[in-house]
Each structure stands twice: as C-alpha cells, then as structure tokens.
C-alpha cells in the first residue's frame, strides 16, 4: 500500500469510551512530570499498536511481474503467521521516541563524569560529516577506485594514531575497546606461535577493567592477576614474580584505573620484554596523555584506542564505538587483513597478508565512527590534542581538590591524571553506600561517577570530568557532592530513598534477574523466559 500520511486504520472502530478516569488520558498526555513521584511511564510501542495502522508505505508491487509463490518457494520455507510487529503510525513513533528521549540523561543535557568512560562533549560537525552520503551511503564491497576518499581518510587517521602512540601501523576493524583487546591478544598469540614459542599466560593487574580478563580468556590464554602496590601502582616485585617465559603479555592501562600514571613503566617494559613477553596498552585512559607521552616510547608493543572516548564520538546509549589497534613494527604482519596501503597517487586494500590473524569484523569496522574521529582530529590538530590532555588532567585535579574534604581518596597518591577514585567508606559508616551517593546525585541533576570500580577500592566512586567541562560545572557538581556528604552525616535515610525526582524511583534489580522478563508479550501470553536467582549479580556491581 502506498501513500497517505494521515492516520490510517482505526477509522472504523467505535470508541466505547471505556472508563473516563485519568489513567487513559495520562497515557496519551505528555508527561510534564517526567520526573518525580507523579511521573507517568511511557507505554511500550506494542501497547500503542492498533490493528491496521502503519507508518510504512511501499510502491505497488504490481509494477513487477507477479510471482507464483507455490512455484518459487516451497511451502515449508514460507512464513506461516504474521510477525507481531507493532501497528503504529509515524506520528505514534515520533511521539513515542521523543517522549522516551525526554526520559534519558545524556551529555547533551549535562555533566556525565562516568569514570573510565570519558564522556566528553561530542562536537556536532563530526555528526554532520558522518551523515554525508559520500560516507554513510558507501557499500563496503565497492572496489577501491570508487572509494578513494574513504581510504584516504583511513590512511590519514592511521598515520595520526601511529604518531600519537609512537607505533607503526593500525587496523580499524575492532568495533570497540574490548574488540581491540581480543584482536591485540590474538596478534600476540600469533607472534609467539610464529616464533615457535607458544605461551599460555597473560598477566593483568587487579585493578584491570573486566574486559581485560575476559578478552584474555577469549584469546585462549589464562589470566594471572597481580596485586597493586599500596601506592596504587604496579608492584614491581609482584610483577617480577609473575613473569616467566610462559607469559605472553602484560596488559595494563597507563594511567591506570586509579587515574595514576605508572611512573615505573620503563622498568616494567624491561621486565616484560626480558622474559619475551609483549606489553599491551589498554587505551581507555589515553585521554590523559594525548600528545604528552606515547605508549610506544614507554615500551608498549600493542595499543588499542577507544575512539569513542578519546576522540569524542558519541557513545550512543552503549555504542557504537571504535577500538582500532596500533602495533609496533614487529607485529605489523599479523594485523587483520585487509589493510589500506598507498598505491601510486591513491590507496588500495592490501589483502595479500599471509601472516595476518584474519578478520575480526565482517567489513571495515565502524567506519562512521572513524569519520567522526577524523573530524575531531582535524578540529583539534596536534596542539589541540595536547590541550585536551592538559585540561582533562587539570579538571580532574581541581575537582578532586574540591571534593577531598568530604570524601576519601581510594589511594592517596597525587596529582592524579584525568580521573580519580574516591571511596565512600566514611559515608558507608554513616549509612550511605557509594550507590546511595550515586542516586543522590541523580536527584541533584547529575549523572553519577562510575561506582564499585576498580574493585580494589572499597565503595569506589570513580570520577572522570573530562576536558570539555567548565569550572562552573565542576563547582556545581562539587557542591552537589558536598551536600550529599553533609546529608549522609546528618541523616543518610533520604539518600537511601533516592532518587525521588528522576523519571522512576530506585529499581528492584533483583526482581528483574529473578523473574526474567526480557521481552514484551501480548497480555494473552505468559512470559516464557524464566530465570535463576543465582544470576542476579552482586548489588555492588561495577558500572563502567
């Protein structure tokens, strides 16, 4: 059916006027009170469904010769019942998602100091660039001669990442940081195997992000964890103990997840390389040293970068990101194929990479994110990027200074780099856990820091302000945090009830896991998933 944009369907159904109460009206009405105890939820799109209504329109199939389905498609292959997609108009859709958007916090609305996630402001020129048909409407299988602009962009971005990391070559296939980790570890595996020196273990610090050990396992290695020093740094003795010739790699971030720069990094590299191990740099914290110091110069062999963090591409409610992997000269041959190479005046895909570990993505990675990152690179330039690191570190230290009277620092070392980890130990004693502090911040209009990560800090509050926030914002946030600390001291009760102004109150997370409902069912059907109470996870789940 084609055409009419007005509301289709529903014309014939007589309204019975079922119940004149506020309930129904409230559903159709706009929830001004998106916040607060009176806030009304937005129905599911399925609950807006009305038979025969639709937003889509398609050309009349009649222009094409008819097809006898029985002849061309065996009955057993054919759909038997209609898929139960919602039946809504475009108007319904737009209102539904606009209202859902009003129930969601974001960087475009305010401060989002989620530690380790680098929630910086996302410049809009990058969005506009990525939406150009010359990028968004490229098919990944178009031959190189049709996509020279895209290949040039990749080559120039690769060059910049190599400059910034001090390494030799990159792959853009990894779609996120964790994807980069797996890719890097597979390369390390291939490196050792190529030398007939297969190894089984990868060492990580106890402060590592969860993706690190998970990637180690996916790459077929075993995890060896080393404890941090009392200063919150790598314990060189412990590391030396953990290292032997079965160690494929040591995998860390620098600055580490406490926001501290590993000043013994040169020593660390020497130790790791002495046993033939490779040094892996988790680039989640690269923002702190952008243009100021280079992993390659520190002795790292493999680096993944989270462009969605350091290069300011929006996080999309959880993704997409991009996790390109940059490696030292001796690992270049192992990069996933194909890679972009110069070819006379232009560029081409090099597929002839016999030592490559092979693909880790169906195509070329999250190209659209790379376009945004390239726009960010151009906008800042080398000088701007250095300024990014400086301002990020300044903001973190300033905010820490403003908070340190009321909250303890997880590990006492200072200055910190781009982020810092507080402990709500004291507040816990007063009856308000880190989670309660977080929920109190929601009521005060801020996104909370990461909580309960890294695991080595009790009641952790991991704060990363980023360079894109102003001193006014940092001050406002500090005041909210101090107010919460004062509240905890006076009476922690209200914090345990928080939030009360958000679109919903505190959620029963245990219930969600216990009676898993992972999809909507029509009222006539029972939920079918079911679950296992063991799966619910600890109440102090890390959030990063």
């Amino acid at each position, binding site marked *: 059916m084609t055409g009419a944009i007005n509301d289709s369907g529903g014309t014939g159904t007589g309204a019975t006027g079922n119940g004149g109460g506020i309930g129904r009206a409230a559903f159709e009405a706009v929830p001004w009170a998106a916040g607060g105890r009176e806030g009304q939820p937005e129905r599911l799109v399925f609950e807006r469904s009305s038979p025969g209504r639709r937003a889509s329109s398609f050309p009349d199939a009649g*222009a094409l010769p008819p097809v006898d389905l029985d002849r061309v498609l065996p009955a057993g292959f054919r759909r038997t019942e209609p898929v139960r997609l919602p039946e809504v108009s475009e108007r319904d859709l737009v209102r539904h998602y606009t209202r859902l958007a009003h129930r969601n916090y974001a960087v475009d609305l305010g401060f989002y100091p989620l530690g380790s996630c680098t929630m910086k402001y996302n410049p809009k020129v990058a969005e506009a660039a990525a939406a150009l048909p010359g990028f968004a409407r490229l098919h990944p299988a178009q031959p190189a001669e049709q996509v020279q602009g895209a290949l040039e962009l990749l080559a120039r971005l690769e060059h910049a990442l190599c400059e910034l990391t001090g390494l030799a070559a990159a792959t853009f296939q990894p779609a996120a940081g964790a994807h980069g980790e797996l890719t890097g570890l597979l390369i390390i595996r291939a490196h050792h195997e190529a030398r007939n020196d297969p190894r089984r273990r990868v060492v990580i610090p106890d402060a590592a992000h969860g993706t690190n050990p998970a990637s180690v396992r996916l790459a077929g290695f075993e995890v060896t964890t080393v404890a941090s020093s009392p200063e919150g740094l790598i314990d060189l003795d412990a590391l030396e103990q953990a290292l032997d010739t079965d160690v494929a790699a040591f995998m860390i971030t620098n600055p580490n997840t406490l926001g501290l720069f590993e000043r013994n990094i040169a020593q660390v590299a020497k130790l790791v390389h002495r046993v033939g191990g490779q040094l892996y740099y988790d680039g989640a914290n690269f923002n702190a040293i952008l243009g100021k110091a280079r992993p390659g110069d520190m002795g790292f062999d493999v680096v993944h970068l989270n462009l969605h963090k350091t290069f300011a591409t929006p996080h999309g409610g959880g993704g997409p990101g991009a996790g390109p992997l940059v490696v030292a000269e001796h690992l270049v041959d192992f990069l996933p194929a194909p890679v972009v190479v110069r070819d006379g005046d232009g560029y081409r895909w090099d597929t002839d990479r016999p030592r490559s570990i092979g693909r880790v993505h169906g195509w070329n*990675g999250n190209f659209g994110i790379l376009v945004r990152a390239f726009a960010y690179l151009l906008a800042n330039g080398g000088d701007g990027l250095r300024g990014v690191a400086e301002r990020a570190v300044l903001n973190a230290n300033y905010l820490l200074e403003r908070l340190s009277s009321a909250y303890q620092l997880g590990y006492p070392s200072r200055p910190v780099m781009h982020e810092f980890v507080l402990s709500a130990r004291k507040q816990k004693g007063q009856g308000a856990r880190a989670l309660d502090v977080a929920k109190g911040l929601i009521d005060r209009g801020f996104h909370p820091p990461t909580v309960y990560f890294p695991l080595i800090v009790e009641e952790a509050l991991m704060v990363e302000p980023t360079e894109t926030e102003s001193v006014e914002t940092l001050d406002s946030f500090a005041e909210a945090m101090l107010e919460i600390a004062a509240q905890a001291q006076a009476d922690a009760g209200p914090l345990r009830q928080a939030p009360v102004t958000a*679109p919903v109150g505190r959620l029963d997370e245990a219930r969600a896991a216990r009676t898993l409902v992972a999809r909507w069912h029509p009222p006539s059907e029972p939920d079918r*998933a079911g679950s296992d109470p063991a799966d619910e996870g600890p109440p102090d789940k890390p959030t990063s």
Partner: protein
Amino acid sequence: MLATLGLDDVDQLFKPIPSDLRAPADLDLPRPHAEQEVAAELGRLAARNRHLDELTCFLGAGVYDHYVPAAVWYLAGRGEFATSYTPYQPEMSQGVLQALFEYQTLISELTGLEVSNASLYDGASAVAEAATMAVAATRRSELLVSAAVAPRVRELLETYSRGLDIKLVEIGALDGQTDLEEVRGKASDQTAAVLLAQPNFFGVVEDVAAAAELSNGVGARLLVSFDPLTAGVLEPPGRLGADIVVGEGQGLGNHPNFGGPAFGFLACRPEDVRRLPGRLVGETLDTAGRRAFVLTLQAREQHIRREKATSNNCTNQTLNAIAAAVYLSWLGPQGLEEVGQLCLRAARYAADRLARIPGVRLAFPEQPFVKEFVVRLPADPAEVSRRMVDHGLLAGLPLTGLAPGLEDGLLVAVTERRTKADVDRLADALAAVLADLGADRAEGAGDGRRKGEEVAR
C-alpha cells in the same frame, strides 16, 4: 583553577611522567582546523567516493541498500540517545532501556526465539559469539560450518577459533545449497553445532527444518545466520528448530556506512540465557511499583564475571539497535511482508531478465531465492562490474576467488528500492557491456537455464 591547586603551569600536573618519556614536540599531526575547514575537508573526501545515491545498487552480500525511512535517524539521532552511554543508572536512562527492551522483543519476533540480547558488533562477530555459546552449552568443540556461509564470516570464525577451543569442519554446498547429507555424515557426539546462513551467501534458501532435525539428532545446536529483512516471506529459523539465531542488522534502518556501524543480533532459547553474550534488558518495578527497565543477568558479563564472562563485550551497537527498533515499528507486520514480497518479485524479475542475455545464466536455476542470486557471466565479473559503473550501476559482487567453481559468478542483490526500470537498466547495460567485450557470442550463450554444478567445496 590552577590557583586553587597552588600551581602556575598545568604542565606541573604531568610530573609523574618521567621526562624522558615525554612525547616529542614535533609529532606529524594536522594543524588545528576551524569548523568550516573541517566541514570542507570532510566534504572533499566524501565527494571522492561514489555513493549509493549516485549509483543504482545491486550489490549486497550481507549489506543491502534497503530504504531507511526519514523518521529513523530523526529519532535515533536525538542527543538524549546518541550522547548517553550504557544505562548503568537506570533511573535516568529509561529512554534507552525501554527502547532496547522493545528492540529485544522485535528481534525475538523476527527470529522466533524468546530471548534477544541488546546487540553485538556485527553479524559476523555474532556468529562467533553464537559458536562460543554452543561450545559452552554442549561442552563439545566441533562446529560444522556450511560452505554457503559468507566467506567473510567464515574468515572471522577462523580468526576467533584460534583463541577458542573450536574445531571448524566445512560442509560443502551442492547446487548452491548446504549439503545436508554431508552434515548427516559428519555430525557426531563431538558436534557442538551446525552453522547455516538463511538465505545463504548465494542467496539460496536453506532447509532449516531438516538441518535442525539432523543437529538435534546428535545433541548439537543449530545456529542460523538470518537476514531479518526476509522474515516477511521466510519462516523465522527459530520456529523451524534453530537454537541460536544471529544476523547482521544493517538492513534494519541502518545506512551501509561502508560496513559499519550497523549491528549484530543474537537470540536464543530461555535455556541458554545464562550463556548469552552482551547486555540484556529486563523488566522490573520501581519503589512506587511502576514498570521500569534495567540491565539484568549482569553476572554473565565481563564487569562482574571477568575471565569467566560469557563474552568480553562492553561497548556494543546500542544506537544502531535503537534505529532498528524504530525501523521495525515503522515497518509493521504488513510492511515487513511487503518488503519481502517486493524483494522477491524484483529479484525474480531481475533473474529472468539477466538469464535471457546471451551468455548469461543462473548459477542455481532450480533453487529457491528471495532477494539475491548468482549469475554466471561469459566474461570476467570484476571487469564487467567495473564497466557497469559507467552506466551508473553497481551490478553485484564478483565471486572470483570467493567461491570455488563460481569464478564466473556475479552475486546480484535486489531490494525493495529497485524498480522495474532499474532492473531493465541493469539488464540492458549488462547486455551492452557484454557486447562491448565481445562476450555475448561466447560459449553457452542463450542457455540461461543450465543446471549449476556443485560449487564451493
């Protein structure tokens, strides 16, 4: 701010970095660009690409030129969605959470399986995640992989299998369809799973039900990589016995984006939910008893279970999944059916028209297909495709080097965007190009119906 810290130079904060590790000052990086210069330079690069608004696209092979309705990115692109992150704080993230809950429901409907996660990187890596699940669930390590699964996907599986304890065993394709007899022969109590694509790389519709019977017979899982845009005409694999259904979500409201970002989806049975990779949104109540949504079963995930997690996924492709949810709600049940029917009709018309060109024949004339098919050409497919661009056409994917026995093959995809006039233009241009190449008088000309031989062994 510096004064508050008792400093007079921001560089003092960098003193933990040993001075010999400071970056050189002369890094070869661009100068700072004004916004209008950024826009101009990106515009220049974009203009050096030939895109699908300029070229009429019959190229598919996993990424398709389906229509992206204007409402999709108008909504998904809103700052409240785009500039938020993983909804760790559910009370202020109900927008993303509810959108993902709806997404999960929609994927469940399309695949015919109860539980969908909240997205994976792409369709290819989703296959690897499914394989990992099957291995964990069965405690077996052999994966029977159809040769009619896309080469790129098989390459990725190969890469991932280096780290996982998975043995890949190839199953050949006979006349473009997975050889189920070979599955029967090779399936055993070592078999963790059988992997098919529906439709497969050659566009051919597989017999999922038969494959499910064989897999179940040996206690293995059946994994199917499914094109969700065919769900309007094809029975969802989950309803035919597939245990895990994955796929590439690009066609669902996402632009081709030179291959990404789009997203992969993964759906499974409730029994397998504890092995599900990635984020999962569940329903719950708030303190006031209102329905609300929250990330759940997080004990599967890396941030809690660490090396024992079901996968290492953290950042995923949420925004693309939200776009898919908007798209599917836009589509509705009738729209899904109409897309399927339009693709089917246009593809069959295209196959008919092309097969009538002297020297051109269908590779698998007896096999069912719904939107993509292979033709054999009497000239080098890559050379032909290159020349077709001069006619403003992306004719398809040359199979040379991708499928043994199909060196002369061209994989042609026909979506609902292609009109009869587009198809006619394709056929006319192909005839002209072949005539130019002198290939229309080649052997086999006119025999468009010859039975395809066994391929892709």
